[in-house]
């Protein structure tokens, strides 16, 4: 029976897209770039439409969505992790949340069905941006010496243990943090896309042989699509809240 000889495409076929325009230049455009441009435009349009002046004070429609988003970031991200003086990072965190959300959610939008963040480029760029920001905030609020002292020699540790703790803290603060941030977003999106592709291929192959059993992977596909919507929102939230935690950690060191 050739059901077992399921034709599964190699992983690179699922994530590499041919160039559409400006081939061979650094500005080459393919499907991933188009999704990112659309996500950027969607974020700008959302807040542009929500911010225009209107007569009524009651938020409706787009304005309501944008204000709920800002409220959500303020109450469950900034106030929980940085505190009231983190409000100056609200615009950055909010726009980053919506940009990541819009480029993740294309995973389940019909006819696009590709999460743009399953390519490493933008996650690592965002993570390096976050790295620069939390280091600059740390140096600005504690001074260069104080920031290095607090992050490399955490207070409350016995003096002898600094031999072990300091190298670990050095690697974890300056290397592991940005990379784990980027890998978390990227790998979640890759895993979700592979999951959806697997069940879609299984459904299509079973449908070619007998019709009834194809319902089982199809039901699983629907369940997984719902789960991936949750994962898209959750990963955008986790990226944002970890950024806030890192900024908060370098703003208020533990005493």
């Amino acid at each position, binding site marked *: 029976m050739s059901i077992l000889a399921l034709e599964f495409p190699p992983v690179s076929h699922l994530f590499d897209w041919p160039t559409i325009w400006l081939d061979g230049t650094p500005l080459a455009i393919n499907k991933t770039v188009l999704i990112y441009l659309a996500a950027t435009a969607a974020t700008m349009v959302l807040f542009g439409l929500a911010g225009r002046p209107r007569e009524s004070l009651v938020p409706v429609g787009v304005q309501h969505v944008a204000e709920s988003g800002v409220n959500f970031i303020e109450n469950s991200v900034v106030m*929980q992790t940085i505190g009231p003086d983190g409000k100056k990072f609200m615009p950055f965190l909010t726009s980053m949340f919506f940009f990541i959300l819009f480029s993740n959610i294309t995973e389940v939008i019909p006819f696009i069905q590709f999460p743009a963040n399953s390519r490493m480029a933008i996650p690592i760029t965002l993570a390096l941006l976050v790295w620069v920001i939390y280091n600059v905030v740390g140096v600005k609020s504690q001074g260069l010496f104080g920031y290095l002292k607090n992050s490399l020699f955490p207070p409350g540790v016995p003096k002898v243990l600094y031999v072990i703790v300091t190298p670990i803290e050095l690697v974890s603060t300056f290397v592991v943090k940005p990379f*784990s941030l980027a890998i*978390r977003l990227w*790998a979640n999106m*890759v895993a979700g896309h592979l999951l959806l592709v697997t069940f879609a291929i299984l459904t299509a192959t079973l449908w070619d042989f007998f019709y009834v059993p194809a319902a089982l992977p199809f039901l699983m596909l629907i369940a997984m699509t719902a789960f991936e919507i949750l994962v898209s929102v*959750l990963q955008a939230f986790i990226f944002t809240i970890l950024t806030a935690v890192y900024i908060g950690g370098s703003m208020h060191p533990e005493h």
Partner: protein
Amino acid sequence: MLSLLAQTAPGEFLDGLKAIGAGLGYGLAAVGPGVGIGLVVGNAITSMARQPESAGMVRTTMFLGIAFTEALALIGFVVFILLLP
């Protein structure tokens, strides 16, 4: 089994070993974080049930804990993708 192995080209044999290693590696990497996420969520639910008024703070911290624990499983997944023949 041995005659089957003898028929395959050396490259294919290595690819098979790589696939076995990738699968086992991912499976082993998922064990620890699975237990860890279970502990994090279970304790978060216990504390939410005891003190429903602190549920918001507990939920935020729970997601943070899940994110940190999950990173190990995701590194295993990355190795899995890299090892695939």
